[in-house]
């Protein structure tokens, strides 16, 4: 059993479609400086650093060396991880593992991406097997459209259900000064936006952003000393799926289902809908905000549309999801899942500003990527 670990500081950039004022290293420095300020630490307090992004989005393969000044990593141990869309939760998990191991007291975890530097869809296509699926079935939008299409047919979900999720997340982003896209949007606006790939429309889908996020993990002893109200890590779970898109189960989300089941077991959660106060979920498309609710055990398979229509996950609902505006409002890919962790930590710490949910004791955050992989963390106000 590892040491207990708390999050003691979070920082993120002001994200945008194009941050022409800042290189990747400057984005990293902005997020790291803000995290240090948030925790009231200096770089001298940091014992180890974990960093992650997707190499092919910037065509830079040694961020761990090239960004040393922005990371503050000179003469410190640095660990680079990259796992596609889940990079942010993997960076978070790796920061947590470092601190929990007892080998490092205070660990800085950094995710970043400068999506404006390349053609994101072309770069994403390289995640598919080049001798099999890259040509006939690649990119981000098509596969997500395919899975929701099947869910609609199986359970009677509608395009309006996903549009409702899109409007919810996009309007939530109005309360988040860091979000890239902040626009008041109605369900009608979403339904009337251009069709990208049936049933996914323009306003259902995430953008690509420039940005970075930094989260500071500390073991129990240090966290108690350095932070008045740490967000304690109750568990961190990762699950990967099959090799080929064609192998996947499309009616539900198996890695999310298995990862959350294991996480709930570890954290002693029996009724997730009741026990969580807030969730920051990596929903790359509003359709996932319908279908994947089943796989988080909030309801039976096919039960999500009813909850969505009831407003269960709205800011004033039973379990607010994505007060930050979520991924469809902001998506610097290597940072995206770490932003979920950082936002959830701020909700516990009471630092979420205008998007704060009152009195948060337990928060759920997830990362999604690759061939439908899941990285997932549960944070709490009380020690695990």
């Amino acid at each position, binding site marked *: 059993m590892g040491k207990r670990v708390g999050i003691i500081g979070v920082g993120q950039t002001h994200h945008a479609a194009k941050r022409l004022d800042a290189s990747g290293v400057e984005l990293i420095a902005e997020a790291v400086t803000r995290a240090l300020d948030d925790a009231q630490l200096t770089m001298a307090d940091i014992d180890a650093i974990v960093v992650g992004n997707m190499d092919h989005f910037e065509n830079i393969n040694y961020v761990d060396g090239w960004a040393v000044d922005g990371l503050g990593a000179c003469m410190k141990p640095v660990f680079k991880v990259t796992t596609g869309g889940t990079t942010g939760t993997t960076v978070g998990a790796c920061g947590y593992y470092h601190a929990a191991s007892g080998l490092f007291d205070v660990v800085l975890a950094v995710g970043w991406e*400068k999506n404006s530097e390349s053609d994101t869809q072309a770069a994403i296509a390289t995640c598919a097997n*080049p001798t099999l699926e890259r040509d006939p079935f690649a990119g981000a939008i098509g596969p997500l459209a395919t899975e929701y299409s099947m869910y609609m047919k199986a359970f009677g979900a509608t395009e309006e259900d996903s549009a409702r999720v899109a409007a919810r997340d996009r309007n939530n982003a109005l309360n988040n000064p860091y979000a890239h896209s902040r626009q008041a949007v109605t369900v009608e606006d979403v339904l009337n936006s251009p069709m990208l790939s049936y049933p996914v429309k323009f306003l259902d889908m995430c953008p690509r952003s420039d940005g970075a996020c930094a989260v500071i993990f500390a073991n129990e002893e240090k966290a108690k000393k350095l932070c008045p109200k740490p967000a304690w890590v109750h568990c961190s779970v990762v699950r990967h799926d099959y090799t080929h898109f064609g192998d996947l189960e499309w009616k539900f989300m198996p890695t999310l289902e298995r990862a959350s089941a294991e996480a709930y077991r570890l954290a002693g959660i029996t009724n997730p809908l009741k026990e969580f106060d807030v969730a920051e979920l990596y929903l790359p498309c509003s359709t996932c905000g319908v279908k994947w609710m089943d796989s988080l055990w909030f309801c039976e398979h096919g039960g999500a549309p009813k909850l969505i229509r009831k407003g269960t996950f709205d800011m004033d609902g039973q379990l607010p999801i994505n007060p930050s505006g979520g991924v469809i409002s902001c998506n610097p890919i290597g940072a995206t899942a770490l932003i979920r962790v950082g936002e959830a930590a701020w909700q516990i710490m009471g630092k979420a500003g205008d998007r704060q949910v009152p009195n948060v004791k337990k928060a759920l955050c997830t990362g999604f990527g690759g061939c439908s992989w899941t990285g997932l963390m549960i944070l709490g106000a009380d020690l695990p």
Partner: protein
Amino acid sequence: MPSWKDDVEVLVDEGKISVPYSWTVGSTLSRFYCELRDNGKIWGNRCPSCGKVFVPPKIKCIDCYEDLRDWVMLPGTGTVETYTVVRYQEPVLHPRKAPFVYGVIKLDGADTGMVHFIGGVDPEEVKVGMRVEAVIEGEREGNILDIKHFRPIK
């Protein structure tokens, strides 16, 4: 090895990925390149805490993690710390044809070295410790090749 493998013609799928990139130079390096392009001058930035001067400029002090807001103009002269004579053809992207010389030049007023070409001299005559000066291109575009090379000070 299963016997059926003997009868298989193994295939290789030839591919080529060409993704265009446009890299953000960033505020720090943009300032360095604009000074070079517009005024033909080399600038560095100094750490307010330890006083170290970085050329090319850095985002943060490597030792102190301080912002480097103090900018200093350097005379463009320096000393060759080390070098090599390249005699093979570099890949297509490389701007120079062999043989050419490159090395590390410690600029006067800087605490860090800078890598660049050493030219205007026979490769055989380049020496460690040689005093050199920057040769600035006449037509400048705002990148590192606005410095043509460093040549010996006569």
